[in-house]
């Protein structure tokens, strides 16, 4: 019996761990990255950044965001050219590139990937609208395309959804022409098509794999997923279909001024992708990431707050010993604002603008930056500094302890005393993660800021789902959150204050201001123009004055990479951009 047990268990254990380390030649051709845990490869279902990054290596959409050009612009990817737009701004006609194929996969007849047609795009967008799919991306299409909402209603009927049901504003005229008609002018719609919700998925794969489609991606992209040990690593390899069908995607030949000097145009015109293989490890712990980077197990890493002093000197330059090892530092802004939201439905903070202004004035950006080791910039406007509409000189609530105390007294809490109880005013801050140390420390620093004006801040740590449920029910008083821009347009940030978007929508502060809403509705349909920028600035001022958010900071990313990794230009929307990277052969050891 003992022998039997050993016979059963040992090979099982051996077989599972017995992989050898990758050999040197393979290592040389492989880009090693780290990522956070991803939620699968179904583009309709995920909504987090790491998943979107993985997905856009495998899947592609009609449009993409330019890699080198700044300001960011849209360029055709699977479309042959930018779409024609009708005069009223409602109708977009896309022409598809010829000779686009899905990767080979057993879900296709004969296992050979077939050509992509306009119908596939119709299917992919319908799939996001399908109630039974339960897509997290419906907000991006809700009410925008003519007839799509009716399709969504029809999809709630029992039985499988009928995808042959026509949608008026979503038609394939011929295999290579797609027409999309909007319900109202909405210039940002094209940006949405460049997100991961706009990628094309083959119907065969969805139907063959069912529940498991999420772990069996089949796309048109430069890479395909060849191995996935969930919670450990993903391996992507060059999609052989590209060479086979002669897909001619090339490295851009021009870029922003100065790109040539930075060596970013060395590969101009070369055929993509430049790297054969990507291995992406799931490492959440910054200390572990850092140790792996130093040992060469990763080619790129973000510098966590606590690694700062061993990487960068007081002037913000890379330490000489790291420079000597051929490590490079890249500093880049993020399109992201971290904030503490005030629930405007809360009887204490929601009705008292002076209190919110007082708390905003008590926020000491200098100490905040020190805690973050300079890896953040102060946020002064709900529009990030990278976008038009941001006004660098309008910051009425800069740190001023005296003003904070004065405002607090005017708000009805002299020296923080709550007249109702006779004790210090007590507020509760909800946080969405309990196991994140940086977050905990940041929140504890906030308690110190508030304590200086006599306000007690209690911290309430939740896990993600519990936190969002609280927000949705408007039960949180203060909440710590950040908004990551989906596309480079201030509209994406300002819609967080639009009344109809109140919880459970993206307006988590439940801010309601008819004047703001009216202006916003006007700005939303406008083309990019100085008038629109002025309107954005005006909207931002309204928000700043009302303080529904206590603006904390705009994070920067400090990334280190080994010199071997070339063509790495910092990008705000770095989704699927690894196809432009190149690896140099490592120096013989």
């Amino acid at each position, binding site marked *: 019996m003992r022998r039997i047990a050993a016979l059963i268990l040992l090979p099982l254990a051996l077989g599972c761990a017995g992989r050898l380390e990758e050999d040197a030649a393979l290592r040389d051709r492989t880009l090693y990255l780290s990522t956070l845990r991803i939620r699968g490869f179904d583009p309709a279902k995920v909504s987090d950044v790491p998943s979107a990054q993985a997905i856009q290596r495998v899947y592609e959409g009609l449009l993409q965001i330019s890699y080198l050009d700044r300001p960011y612009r849209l360029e055709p990817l699977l479309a042959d050219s930018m779409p024609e737009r009708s005069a009223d701004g409602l109708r977009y006609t896309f022409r598809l590139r010829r000779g686009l194929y899905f990767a080979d996969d057993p879900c296709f007849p004969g296992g050979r990937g077939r050509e992509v047609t306009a119908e596939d795009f119709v299917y992919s967008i319908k799939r996001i609208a399908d109630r039974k799919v339960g897509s997290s991306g419906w907000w991006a299409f809700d009410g925008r395309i003519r007839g799509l909402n009716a399709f969504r209603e029809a999809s709630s009927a029992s039985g499988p959804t009928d995808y042959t049901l026509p949608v008026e504003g979503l038609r394939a005229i011929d295999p290579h022409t797609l027409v999309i008609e909007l319900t109202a002018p909405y210039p940002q719609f094209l940006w949405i098509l460049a997100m991961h919700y706009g990628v094309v998925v083959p119907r065969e794969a969805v139907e063959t794999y069912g529940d498991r489609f999420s772990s069996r991606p089949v796309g048109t992209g430069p890479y395909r997923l060849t191995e996935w040990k969930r919670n450990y690593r993903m391996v992507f390899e060059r999609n052989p279909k590209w060479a086979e069908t002669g897909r001619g995607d090339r490295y851009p030949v021009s870029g922003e001024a100065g790109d040539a000097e930075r060596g970013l145009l060395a590969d101009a015109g070369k055929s993509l992708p430049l790297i054969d293989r990507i291995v992406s490890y799931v490492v959440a712990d910054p200390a572990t990431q850092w140790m792996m980077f130093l040992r060469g197990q990763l080619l790129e890493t973000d510098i966590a707050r*606590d*690694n700062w002093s061993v990487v960068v000197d007081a002037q913000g330059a890379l330490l000489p010993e790291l420079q000597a090892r051929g490590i490079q530092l890249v500093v880049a802004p993020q399109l992201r604002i971290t904030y503490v939201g005030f629930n405007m439905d809360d009887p204490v903070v929601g009705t008292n603008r002076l209190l919110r202004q007082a708390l905003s004035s008590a926020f000491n950006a200098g100490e905040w930056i020190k805690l973050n080791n300079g890896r953040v910039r102060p946020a002064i406007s709900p529009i990030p500094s990278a976008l038009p509409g941001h006004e660098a000189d309008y910051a009425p609530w800069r740190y001023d302890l005296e003003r904070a105390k004065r405002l607090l007294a005017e708000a009805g809490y002299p020296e923080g005393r709550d007249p109702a109880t006779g*004790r210090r005013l007590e507020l509760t801050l909800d946080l969405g993660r309990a196991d994140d*140390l940086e977050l905990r420390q940041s929140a504890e*620093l906030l308690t110190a800021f508030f304590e200086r004006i006599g306000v007690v801040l209690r911290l309430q740590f939740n896990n993600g789902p519990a936190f969002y449920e609280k927000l949705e029910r408007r039960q949180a008083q203060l909440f710590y959150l950040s908004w990551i821009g989906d596309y480079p347009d201030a509209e994406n940030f300002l819609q967080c204050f639009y009344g109809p978007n109140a919880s459970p929508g993206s307006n988590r502060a439940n801010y309601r201001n008819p004047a703001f809403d009216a202006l916003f509705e006007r700005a939303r349909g406008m083309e990019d123009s100085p008038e629109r920028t002025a309107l954005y600035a005006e909207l931002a001022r309204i928000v700043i004055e009302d303080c529904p958010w206590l603006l904390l900071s705009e994070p920067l990313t400090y990334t280190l990479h080994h010199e071997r990794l070339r063509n790495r230009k910092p990008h705000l929307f770095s989704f699927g951009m690894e196809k432009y990277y190149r690896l140099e052969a490592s120096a013989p050891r």
Partner: protein
Amino acid sequence: MKRLLQLGRAQPLAAVCLLIIACYAGLALFGELTYRWHEWRDTTPAYQQQDISRQYQPPSRDHWMGTDGLGRDVFLRLVQGTRIAFHVGIVTSCIAIPIGVLFGLLAGYFGGRIDDFIVWLYSTFAAIPGLLFILAIAMVAGKGLTGVYLGIGLTTWVGICRLVRAETMKHRERAYVQAARVLGFSAPRILARHILPNILHIVIVTFTLRFPASIGTEVFMSFLGLGVQGEPSWGLMLNSARTRLWQGVWWEMAFVTLAVFLLVLAFNVLGDRLRDALDPRLRDGGGPERN
């Protein structure tokens, strides 16, 4: 006092352990008083005072054990952490021991249906993977200490229940219990007056052995972010100490580790000695614990 001295002479090791535990208990009491005092005065206690300009300072005369990432004094927080550790040890015992003893007595004394039910109940609880169960209960009860108390309390009564049940069954057949029955004493009276005092040693031994285990579990849970929210606890401190450890910020890690180690060691040694003295036949509930 005299008896303590006697103990000291007969069992020097146990006496030292008792002394160590007493010191910790004193610190915990001090921490509790500090906490209450500041609560009552509505002020911010010294162990919460931050000063970002003094972050990560090594031990010095001002800060005996250095400062942490927000410039708070590690020594003061360590003392305050004792308070949480004792809270956890005592409250979880107060949940687990009464449940375990009550069920054990009932099952052992009455037998039959009651016994069947209680055996079913504890075998159900015993079958569920322990640590996972604790974490799940803590999640359900909400983050914070309540979750920790309930999680540990509601899972650890099983062992005590088992021991008490077996012991009660033995006592039920003894002459003194039979006599009490013949005299017509009621069951609650027999259980409370006659049997309970005779099995009290089990309670004492389990308490001394459960206490350090609970502390260990709390450290673990706080580490995962399921524990204390606003107050300093050893688990939280260990976790925050870890981030800068390999840059040479050793003090928080070292002192907290030492503090936890000493207390747990003292309890473990004392528990062993007590067991040897009171009932050598009592054994650990099982083999090595796993997490």
